């Protein structure tokens, strides 16, 4: 039997309702059962649909659940869509999500009240629901529901420790920045609607493909607007500022939302719209550039960070940049492949860091860690595997996906971007090993009683680590380069249906095939760069205890400070937008509202009253004056009526 698609998101939704309404009363055990159970069920449901589907043709299956909005000439349904792309997404969203839920049990159990615990799982379930809606949606409007839904959950979960000012602020920041993106996304949607008169995927894409020449210019604008949405959601420059702050949330949240799933929604969306983007080359170029710049920019910042989660956060930003770079050069498969692998190893890394923080009782500063390899063996090993995978060491997953991207960039004849990507690969390797060394190598630099308390995490936490580490090691084989054979790249074959061939007017964008020799060469280069990065980091931080870094710092203090301060982008925005906004608001209120509008009106009223007060003294109380006014009236009247007669 086949489960209806709507079940997949519905189950977490039910979980959410149960937790939020009853959770506080039912206690932790029950909540964990519901919270994890619902996601588990969703996973099962998803895979029971997927398994037969993988065997099948890959033709999209659309399930129309109900009409949603009908007004004017707009008509939107609530309908879900299962096709290779969404299939790929739900496969790992559900699974990784499940693992992280399991992990959360261990992570959250101790330091939370029943209410807080229930709230946590409720939000997590709500997130699962939103994310699944996002990827399963069959039209832009419904996608936007999920799109904003995940934003909401990220807002709620970042602000989970609401009594911390920083957390509250971070949550708001995340939501507002996302909203800026959504602003673009909305307009993009409107653009699509006015171009194609529908918001259904099939309708839009088929019409777009049917007559590329006609929609070309309009599409460029639309795609750029959609991409604005993506930059917001996926923390690309210049809207990347929220993601690092988002680390204020509980670590599993960072793992699930801000590493594995939500942040990749942008990539998913762009890939989903690949037809449109491919018809708008300029837009694609922009995507590629933004992606490339973000990749290196974030990587550079990551080098200098000392907060373990921040390093990972910036690395996430940078990796997302990679994915957009891939999309930008048309290597959508590579992009999605990287989404997949990244989900595995980055989740693993975050959970690992979570285990470390957990072990050190909330300590996040790597400068007060070190030498934990012995104390936290499982964590250490899994962390290392994931780190190497991220660094792109063959045959781990990261290597293949990253290599696929670089190949794509190279094949698209974008040398500069290729250089960027390559360099970033080196940086990535460098900062990851820096992180590993600082955390696990050397001797412990924290306080004694921290040292005393250090303990390996409970199985609920380590189990997911192991699974994810395994995935990070193996997933890569889903997308072997073609040099390993025609059908080696299963992902590509699988995703083929959602990347239909297009006759792009003007230039011939498809067929990015490179000779096998070149491909080998590229692999070699990337491996070399990665290894170089690793070795350097190892030398500086593991062997020489970071003294070279100190020297570097001493030589270029300004540069170092700049990098540590993340290039002071936040400060810049504060100057450019936040403060002027507040100032303008006050001025408008005090000047326009109070002074001008009300001022004028009240002044008018005041004048009238004043006149009254003045005129009332004409009533002197003296009869003769009354007689006089009378006579004056008569005279005036006579002159007015008879004057000139």
């Amino acid at each position, binding site marked *: 039997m086949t489960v209806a698609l709507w079940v997949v998101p519905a189950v977490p939704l039910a979980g959410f309702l149960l937790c939020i309404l009853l959770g506080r009363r039912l206690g932790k055990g029950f909540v964990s059962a519901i919270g994890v159970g619902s996601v588990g069920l969703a996973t099962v449901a998803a895979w029971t649909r997927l398994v037969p589907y993988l065997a099948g043709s890959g033709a999209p299956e659309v399930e129309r659940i109900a009409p949603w909005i009908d007004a004017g000439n707009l008509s939107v349904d609530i309908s879900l869509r299962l096709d290779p792309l969404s299939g790929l997404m739900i496969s790992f969203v559900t699974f990784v999500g499940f693992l992280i839920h399991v992990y959360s049990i261990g992570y959250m159990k101790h330091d939370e009240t029943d209410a807080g615990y229930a709230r946590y799982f409720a939000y997590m379930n709500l997130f699962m629901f939103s994310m699944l809606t996002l990827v399963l949606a069959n039209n832009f409007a419904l996608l936007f529901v999920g799109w904003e839904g995940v934003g909401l959950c990220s807002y709620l979960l970042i602000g989970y420790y609401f009594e911390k000012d920083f957390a509250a602020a971070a949550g708001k920041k995340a939501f507002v920045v996302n909203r800026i993106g959504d602003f673009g996304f909305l307009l993009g949607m409107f653009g699509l609607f006015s171009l194609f008169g529908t918001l259904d995927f099939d309708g839009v894409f088929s019409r777009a493909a049917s007559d590329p020449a006609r929609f070309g210019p309009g599409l460029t604008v639309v795609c750029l607007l959609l991409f604005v949405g993506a930059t917001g959601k996926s923390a690309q420059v210049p809207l990347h500022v929220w993601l690092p702050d988002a680390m204020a949330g509980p670590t599993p949240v960072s793992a699930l939302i801000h590493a594995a799933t939500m942040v990749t929604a942008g990539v998913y969306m762009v890939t989903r719209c690949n037809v449109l983007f491919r018809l708008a080359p300029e837009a694609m170029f922009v995507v590629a550039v933004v992606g490339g710049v973000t990749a290196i920019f974030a990587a550079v910042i990551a080098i200098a960070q000392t907060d373990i989660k921040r390093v990972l956060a910036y690395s996430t930003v940078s990796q997302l940049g990679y994915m957009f770079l891939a999309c930008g050069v048309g290597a959508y498969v590579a992009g999605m492949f990287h989404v997949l692998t990244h989900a595995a190893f980055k989740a693993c890394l975050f959970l690992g860091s979570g285990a470390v923080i957990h072990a050190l009782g909330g300590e996040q500063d790597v400068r007060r860690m070190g030498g934990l390899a012995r104390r936290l063996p499982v964590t250490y090993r899994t962390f290392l595997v994931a780190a190497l995978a991220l660094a792109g060491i063959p045959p781990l997953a990261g290597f293949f996906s990253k290599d696929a991207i670089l190949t794509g960039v190279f094949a698209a004849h974008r040398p500069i971007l290729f250089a960027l990507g390559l360099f970033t690969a080196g940086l990535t390797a460098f900062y990851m090993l820096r992180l590993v060394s600082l955390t696990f190598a050397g001797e412990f630099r924290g306080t004694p009683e921290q040292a005393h308390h250090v303990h390996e995490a409970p199985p609920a936490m380590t189990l997911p680590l192991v699974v994810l580490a395994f995935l990070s090691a193996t997933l890569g084989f889903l997308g072997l380069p073609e040099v390993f054979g025609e059908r080696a790249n299963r992902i590509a074959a699988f995703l083929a249906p959602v990347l239909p061939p297009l006759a792009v007017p003007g230039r011939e964008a498809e067929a990015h095939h490179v000779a096998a020799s070149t491909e080998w060469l590229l692999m070699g280069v990337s491996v070399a760069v990665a290894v170089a990065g690793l070795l350097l980091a190892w030398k500086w931080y593991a062997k020489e205890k970071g003294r070279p870094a100190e020297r570097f710092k001493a030589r270029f203090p300004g540069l170092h400070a700049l990098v540590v301060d993340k290039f002071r982008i936040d400060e810049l925005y504060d100057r450019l937008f936040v403060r002027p906004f507040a100032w303008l608001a006050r001025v408008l209120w005090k000047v326009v509202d109070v002074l001008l509008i009300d001022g004028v009106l009240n002044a008018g009223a005041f004048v009238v009253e004043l006149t009254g007060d003045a005129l*009332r*003294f004409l*009533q*002197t*109380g*003296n*009869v*003769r004056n009354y*007689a*006089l006014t009378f*006579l004056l009236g008569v005279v005036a009247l006579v002159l007015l009526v008879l004057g000139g007669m």
Partner: protein
Amino acid sequence: MIAGGIPLGDVLLASGALFVIGLVGALLRRNAITIFLSIELMMNGANLAVLGYAAALNSVEGQVVVFFVIAIAAAEAAVGLAIFVALFRHTETIDVNRINLLKW
């Protein structure tokens, strides 16, 4: 030319003059009684006009009118003087400049 050759113009001018003089008194005197006298004068001006016209029109109605007016004037005088007396009991004056409890 009317009765025995008195031009109506003269009569009317005279009545107008009386009316205006009454006006002067009513506006410029401060003694309530004098003011009232002036008003009586204005009414007499009106009477004169009526009689003049009556004569000119050779109608008796005019005299009836004046008859009534005089009667009314008498009544007014009675009431007015009563009011003056009643007021005088309070204020000890009938100088209208000094009678202004009620104002503004």
